[in-house]
């Protein structure tokens, strides 16, 4: 254990440390974070020890110097959606309210490993969204232009350019021929657990208490403001309370007497047996909701659409499995004989316009971070960055100014897909 500038007392990870520990029988490793008992009172409590909650705690300490912070997690750190996604990182949004936020997120991703001294296996392998018709090409050209206006990289590829990168697609599918794709080369994948662990370690080393197996059962209010939370480990007081509970946001908000513009629905994802290097990018199908990449272990990681019903179960139904497999075979016929190894489900906080909420609430000192729909993983750094800013200053961060809770009643929805107030269509 030694002191690293800006990181407090923590073991620094490096090639040298692996070598040194290897020579001494790997007996010198220390836990990456403490397991403290909860204190009686904190300046800030964050409910939810997933990616967003941990990133928020990290940036509260690092950017704002607020270290008397607790993250309360009902299970173990990273046991929710941050460990249950398809690890895709991208910033290819169309609307003004969204794109600068995700652009900032991608920039944070690019420097994350050095900053956290943790191997998050960030791999900027490129994300290709396929298009299959003239109309879709026009829509993607527009999206690409919007991305470039926001300072992001976007490239509209023709059919032959896509063929060069991903030759095994079903280019001549009679129903959905591949005409080309919109590519963001800086997009890619990251190790999902690694991100949570890196932020946890970074936050802990700066003095944040990460309290696991501590379920929030009530929110105590006095005179219209939050004074603390009832938990399975007793009452814990706080000055400010931040909710980052993803799929369980509705349940936590209910404790403060709020109803949210959010429905919790299950989204499944899959991984195949390990195969040789096959697909170098993240490729998304334009004819159905389907996306695929290959993990460093060789497994194809892929997913599709929601199961389309409300659910708090972290598992889905076979009908959806079947439709995802059909989409896989339609896009890449050669995967039809690859065996699927595992499937899992995550509980998505689907908002009514498909965009997130980072805002104050009608209850004083209660702040909300939810509504991430399918897109929570890539947003992790910027979500933490902006939520920490909100918790520290009480003011909305410039990049998250569109993510207001009251935008629904004011008519300022950020509806990327134009589906209206039907949570599961976004």
């Amino acid at each position, binding site marked *: 254990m030694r002191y690293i500038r800006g990181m407090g007392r923590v073991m620094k990870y490096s090639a040298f440390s692996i070598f040194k520990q290897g020579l001494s029988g790997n007996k010198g490793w220390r836990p990456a974070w403490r397991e403290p008992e909860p204190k009686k009172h904190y300046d800030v409590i964050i409910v939810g020890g997933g990616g967003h909650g941990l990133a928020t705690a990290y940036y509260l300490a690092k950017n704002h110097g607020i270290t008397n912070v607790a993250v309360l997690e009902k299970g173990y750190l990273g046991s929710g959606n941050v460990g249950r996604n398809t690890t895709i990182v991208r910033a290819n949004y169309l609307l003004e309210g969204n794109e600068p936020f995700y652009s900032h997120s991608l920039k944070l991703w690019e420097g994350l490993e050095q900053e956290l001294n943790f191997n998050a296996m960030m791999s900027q392998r490129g994300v290709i969204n396929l298009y299959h018709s003239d109309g879709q090409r026009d829509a993607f050209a527009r999206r690409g232009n919007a991305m470039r206006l926001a300072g992001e990289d976007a490239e509209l590829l023709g059919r032959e350019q896509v063929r060069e990168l991903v030759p095994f697609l079903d280019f001549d599918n009679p129903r959905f021929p591949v005409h080309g794709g919109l590519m963001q080369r800086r997009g890619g994948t990251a190790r999902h657990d690694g991100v949570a662990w890196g932020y946890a370690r970074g936050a802990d080393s700066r003095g944040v208490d990460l309290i696991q197996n501590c379920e929030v059962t009530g929110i105590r209010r006095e005179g219209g403001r939050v004074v603390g939370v009832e938990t399975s480990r007793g009452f814990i007081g706080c000055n400010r309370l931040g909710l980052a509970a993803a799929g369980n946001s509705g349940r936590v908000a209910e404790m403060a007497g709020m*109803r949210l*513009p959010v429905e919790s629905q299950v989204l499944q994802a899959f991984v195949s047996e390990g195969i040789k290097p096959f697909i170098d990018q993240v490729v998304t199908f334009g004819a159905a909701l389907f996306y695929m990449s290959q993990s460093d272990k060789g497994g194809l990681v892929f997913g599709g659409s929601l199961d389309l*019903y409300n659910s*708090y179960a972290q598992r889905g*139904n076979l009908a959806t499995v079947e439709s995802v497999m059909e989409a896989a075979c339609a896009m890449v016929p050669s995967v039809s004989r690859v065996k699927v190894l595992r499937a899992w489900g995550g509980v998505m906080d689907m908002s009514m316009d498909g965009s997130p909420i980072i805002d104050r609430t009608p209850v004083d000192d209660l702040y909300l971070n939810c509504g991430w729909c399918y897109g929570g993983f890539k947003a992790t750094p910027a979500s933490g960055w902006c939520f920490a800013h909100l918790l520290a200053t009480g003011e909305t961060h410039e990049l998250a100014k569109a993510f207001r809770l009251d935008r629904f009643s004011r008519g300022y929805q950020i509806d990327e897909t134009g589906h209206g107030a039907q949570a599961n269509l976004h």
Partner: protein
Amino acid sequence: MASLITCPHCGVRPKEEFTIRGDAGPVRPAPEAKFAAWDAYVHLRDNVRGVMKEHWQHSGGCRRWLVVERDTFNHAVHSVVDAAEFAQASAAKPGRKAAPAKPAKAASKGRGKA
């Protein structure tokens, strides 16, 4: 989720024949209702973890709208009733405010979505 759903009209059928619309809780406000009531109806949800009533349509069968009581945590299906019957029962129940008389009446003639 249960693989077989008992439709009150068609009997036991595979669940793939049904389309799930979503929460049957929100009741459409009167046209001249206050803005807040419409905002709540369109946007806000109880987002129940546990037993929830949902609108389903037997789209691969009789095409009737149904109200299915389902647990959102373990996916167990508890009961299935016709949406018209459900609306009637709700209207008959004192204290439930917004169950409108008109759709229930129309539904009692055996047509339309309650």
